[in-house]
């Protein structure tokens, strides 16, 4: 901290996308701004550093985006994945504002991938960051520091002191010391609590201890718990988290995008007793991988095992860990720690249930189905019989949690029936205000960018 603890207009808690959007906007409005980021510099940027795209409404071609994507279509896509559990007012605000965000992002240093091949369905709805989320975060830190925003790394906020309806002090630890600042405004953008596996276990049950966390280990919900404990309005189901099935060998934290595994539709998936438990071919994988996060979580040991054979190996994106390979099913079972006779039986039963496979088509729902077994496999059901055989393990990977701070359309937090005069929230930590469940690819960055900018604007206006 270059200045005294009372001289800041704004303290931003967190150092990811939402925090940076707020800090930049406020600094441009003249606010003297300090970012407190708990991570060390190489890990700055929270989950935002793992992202790849931003979902954006547009009425005509915009930057890298082709054609158009209307407010109503965007909202309909959102309603579909959340099953209607969406705050329509805030969702529309986010969607409508996303259109002006894209040029704003470009002006502040973010660069998008040119739409390389026009055939991609996502080239219309989602703008991909050139270099991914970490390059976005880097660009924003550069922009912020050029605007005079100060950043403290390894600064873990522990408590916001609330007097009535006003935050009077921000406590944090830095380089082993306890410190405080008393800014005029505070923006909380410190993400969810998914990295605190104890909290996850309290919400989910002990099985959650076996979950992997796809993103940052620093989003432990410390500020969230502190504020909720002081009566700040909460939103979202505490037992809900967004989870997907990922490679079981992924690191406990920060494995990110590369731990994705896309081979389930071409496989059978068994639990540790070598039993199948769900229709592997229910739908195309992008629409199912969130469901599989939950399915795997419900299996003994929270683990699944994917088995494919030689003919399917090239049908999906290569993954970061090579598959376990064996020349026979029994050998594969041995290597994967599964009961060999049982796996043989399961596989034989599955193979016997496969019928005509001539209509097999890897990228469409092909209706190539099994008959007479339970659970069935309703698409891409081809016998698994061509050695070598390959196996992957699957585990539940948590993306984020839904419990959060309730905000209004000005991103402002409230206590009782009053607004907190100088507290705003942005990003994952308030995303529950919009999404009750489910998730739409690229919407997390939309929420963070839209509400980060709103929070920054409001916080700066308050400080002036």
């Amino acid at each position, binding site marked *: 901290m270059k200045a005294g603890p009372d001289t800041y207009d704004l303290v931003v808690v967190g150092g990811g996308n939402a925090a940076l959007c707020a800090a930049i906007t406020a600094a441009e409005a003249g606010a003297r701004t300090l970012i407190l980021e708990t991570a060390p510099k*190489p890990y700055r940027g929270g989950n935002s550093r793992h992202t790849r795209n931003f979902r954006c409404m547009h009425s005509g071609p915009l930057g890298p985006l082709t054609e158009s994507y209307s407010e109503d279509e965007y909202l309909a896509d959102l309603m579909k994945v959340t099953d209607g559990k969406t705050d329509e007012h805030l969702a529309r605000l986010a969607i409508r504002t996303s259109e002006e965000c894209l040029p704003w992002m470009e002006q502040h240093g973010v660069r998008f991938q040119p739409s390389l091949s026009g055939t991609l369905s996502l080239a219309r709805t989602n703008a991909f960051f050139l*270099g*991914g989320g970490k390059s976005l975060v880097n660009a924003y830190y550069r922009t912020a520091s050029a605007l005079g925003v100060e950043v403290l790394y390894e600064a873990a906020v522990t408590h916001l002191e609330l007097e009535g309806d006003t935050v009077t002090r921000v406590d944090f630890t830095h380089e082993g010391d306890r410190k405080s600042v008393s800014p005029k405004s505070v923006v909380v953008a410190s993400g969810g609590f998914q990295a605190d596996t104890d909290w996850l276990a309290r919400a989910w049950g002990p099985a959650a201890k076996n979950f992997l966390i796809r993103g940052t280990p620093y989003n432990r919900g410390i500020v969230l718990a502190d504020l909720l404990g002081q009566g700040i309005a909460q939103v979202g189901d505490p037992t809900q988290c967004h989870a997907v099935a990922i490679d079981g060998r992924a690191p406990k934290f920060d494995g990110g995008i590369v731990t994705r595994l896309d081979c389930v539709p071409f496989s059978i998936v068994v639990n540790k007793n070598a039993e199948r438990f769900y229709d592997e071919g229910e739908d195309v994988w992008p629409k199912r991988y969130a469901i599989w996060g939950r399915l795997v979580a419900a299996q003994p040991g929270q683990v699944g095992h994917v088995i494919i054979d030689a003919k399917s190996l090239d049908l999906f994106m290569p993954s970061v860990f090579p598959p376990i390979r064996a020349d026979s099913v029994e050998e594969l079972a041995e290597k994967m720690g599964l009961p060999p006779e049982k796996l043989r039986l399961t596989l034989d039963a599955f193979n016997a249930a496969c019928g005509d496979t001539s209509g097999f088509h890897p990228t469409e729902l092909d209706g190539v189905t099994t008959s007479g077994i339970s659970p069935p496999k309703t698409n891409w059901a081809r016998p698994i019989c061509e050695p070598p055989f390959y196996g992957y393990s699957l585990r539940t990977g948590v993306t984020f949690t839904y419990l959060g701070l309730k905000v209004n359309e000005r991103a402002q937090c409230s206590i009782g029936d009053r607004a907190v005069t100088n507290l705003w929230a942005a990003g994952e930590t308030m995303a529950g205000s919009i999404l009750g469940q489910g998730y739409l690819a690229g919407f997390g960055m939309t929420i963070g960018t839209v509400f980060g900018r709103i929070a920054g604007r409001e916080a700066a206006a308050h400080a002036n």
Partner: protein
Amino acid sequence: MQTDLLSEARRQAEICNACRYCEGYCAVFPALHRERAFSDGNLTQFANLCHNCRGCYYACQYTAPHEFDLNLPKALAELRQHSWKTHAWPRRFADLFDRSGMLISVGLIVCFGLFFALVQGMRPESGAGFYAYMSHGLMVAIFLPAFLLPLLTIAISLRGFWRTVGGADLRLGDLWSALKSAGRMKNLEGGHGDGCNFEDEDRFSHARRHFHQAVLYGFLLCFASTSTGTVLHYVFSMQAPYGIFSLPKLLGVPGGILLCVGTLGLAGLKLRADSELGAPKAWGGEMAFVLLLFTVAATGLILYAATGTPWVNWLLPIHLGSVLTLFLLTPYSKMAHGFYRMAALTQEAGAMRRADSTQAHMSLGKEERR
């Protein structure tokens, strides 16, 4: 090939192939994404396509201290360095790469000495300008083989390289697109056109690209100057020294200035850049090479300015010594990179053309996911 360098590059390439966030930065990623498994030849090709712009390092969420420990610019730089050694011809000179910094110094001293001796001992009876110090015939007798022999060995090396990387039919169109890419230094533009990361962490700038272009074009101008001089001499029987408005001087003076500015600029950037993102062991050799190029250009310019003064006595051997060192070491110093780079860019242009025509590798990469 050294297996640990290859297996480290392969390990990292496999992570990148599952991630694909860096797709737009340079030619390496589209080439990488066309494959599912990487042969030694693939990796060697990626290494020589990589311009060490570092965009993919600063953008990577998996750099140390993350356990995946990604540092693709370094892995490719070390492999690239190694690939030049393995393709060097004759083989037994391959290790010279490792010592090219020292080699440059020693080469310079030996060549200076040689020229001093020649200049002192064999001063011609007559002759104007520089030829008053050394006869034209003698210069040709030394420089022609010193120029042609390295080119021959480079040609042999490139043939081996082309085989390693699986180069197929060579088309003029591919060569043309490689020339365009190299001329623009497209791979240092960063995909977005903001340049590369080099001297100041993740800040994008065109500094390295522009200085490198200055070196490239400066070198080509100097080369053209020498060539026109040769033509004037032999075809039109016009003897050096040439006036300022002659072709050799009109090309050579700006060329020399560009080369000086470019090499000094590159050396300055190199001092500020993080050497751990390149091949640290090659740093000294690369720096020595940049300074050698500077010496060639600077002494050339000063020599021209000093025409008619006694300084020529000293400057001429220094200049000729450095030129001779540059020529002779071409196959075993950083100078070789230009040739390998062109080969790799040409091969990539061909591979892209073939992939386009078969459409066999439709990208599996962008399905709906977070």
